[in-house]
């Protein structure tokens, strides 16, 4: 039985975000490569173990510093407007209820982790998303907000100096901008990995919106790479 899982606004903003975020990260890394360290000139920086090591060119976008800056400062508007539309929509339309941590969140997340690590045999009961997904989808917009604020802080460190000072000055704001980007990228990679290895059926739901709850990871008792096929046995068992 196919149901509508994601509203078209959620699907559209998701894919616009994929494009905008990819270009923002790629052009941002190209900008970073112009000075691949955080230290002020004549100083050292405590907290980057790869100080002075540039990002491989093929992971960057924009071709050269000026080009990457133009892309970065153009695409930032797409990223921000798209993000605002998404957040406003899920707030007004009620989707946020499936995306905020509930009471007992950490216990639920712990159970989910135990399941993935084969400590627990059966999939915890969940709603639309499991506890780990909830946590991830909840923090993503906040990390997004952090990248935007730290980004503004290093774009206008004189005109908007109070914002830059809030993050500890230009050097630290640039650092937090980078760290927040890394977090976004890491969570995105985990997200894509889990889609393909645990719930490939959800791919359809983020394109056409349709989803068959009988194929949900909960129904299949699915872990990464395990029980990928639909659970036909369970369907037969419960005729009703």
């Amino acid at each position, binding site marked *: 039985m196919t149901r509508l899982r994601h509203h078209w606004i959620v699907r559209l903003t998701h894919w616009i975000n994929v494009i905008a975020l990819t270009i923002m990260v790629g052009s941002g890394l190209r900008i970073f490569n112009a000075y691949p360290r955080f230290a002020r*000139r004549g100083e050292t920086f405590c907290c980057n173990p790869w100080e002075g090591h540039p990002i491989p060119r093929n992971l960057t976008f924009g071709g050269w*510093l000026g080009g990457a800056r*133009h892309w970065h400062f*153009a695409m930032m508007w797409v990223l921000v407007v798209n993000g605002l539309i998404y957040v406003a929509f899920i707030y007004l339309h009620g989707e946020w209820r499936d995306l905020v941590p509930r009471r007992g969140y950490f216990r639920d997340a712990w159970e989910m982790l135990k399941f993935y690590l084969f400590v627990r045999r059966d999939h915890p009961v969940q709603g639309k998303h499991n506890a780990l997904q909830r946590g991830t989808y909840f923090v993503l917009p906040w990390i997004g907000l952090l990248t935007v604020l730290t980004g503004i802080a290093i774009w206008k460190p004189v005109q908007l100096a109070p914002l830059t000072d809030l993050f500890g000055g230009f050097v630290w704001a640039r650092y937090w901008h980078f760290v927040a980007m890394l977090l976004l990228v890491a969570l995105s990679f985990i997200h894509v990995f889990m889609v393909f290895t645990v719930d490939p059926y959800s791919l359809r739901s983020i394109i056409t919106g349709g989803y068959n709850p009988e194929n949900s990871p909960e129904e299949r008792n699915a872990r990464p790479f395990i029980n990928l096929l639909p659970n036909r046995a369970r369907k037969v068992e419960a005729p009703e």
Partner: protein
Amino acid sequence: MTVDRRKFLTITGSAVSAAILASCNSRGPKSAEKLVKYAERKNEGLERALFRHTSMDATLSGAKFAGTALPSYFVSRTVPLWSDAAMGPWSLEIGGMVDRPIRLSLQQLMDLPRTHQRVNHYCVEGWTAVEQWTGVRFSDLAKLVGAHRDAKYVDFESFDDGYHESWDVESAMHKQTVVAYGLDGHMLGPAHGAPARLYSPVKLGYKNTKYLTRIMFLPARNGGYWSDRGYEWYGGV
């Protein structure tokens, strides 16, 4: 050939991945250039609206002077050196839309009201450096020559192989925009723009012309060395 859903997804997926891979390290599609340019113009409007004369750059108390770690940039093949013997005594010409165009020798420039400021240098590459600059506020020079109200732009020219950058007059009139002849308590050296250079934390480094020769008040913008090579003309911080 019929394309079922699975095939459709495979094809679309491969096409999108191929497009992403192909775009790596590229300058992006040509067709997007106009849109990116449009965004730059809009951003400039916003940046100019954000600009406040009261927004000041301040350095953190713990920050060290960059000193010799301050990189030296010029576009000539070798360090641009002003030779009195070959070029006559150096002077700074201020003209264009002004009531009293003048030509200042270094001594005359140094006799004008002096300002010291410890500020950040913001480079387009992403680094910053703390330095102390000594010089004359641009706004004092503008008063001295009687700049016209409709001179909305200023061009800063140099003897560094044609290097120049034009500015919006608001940024130039900011209290932290100075024509500097001293760095960290010494006279400015040839590596950093001697005899005098423009210095302001409200603009990215490349907007701050070194090896100054002439300041022109203009009715319209006049590009610049790096602005003409694709970097933002505004370059505001």
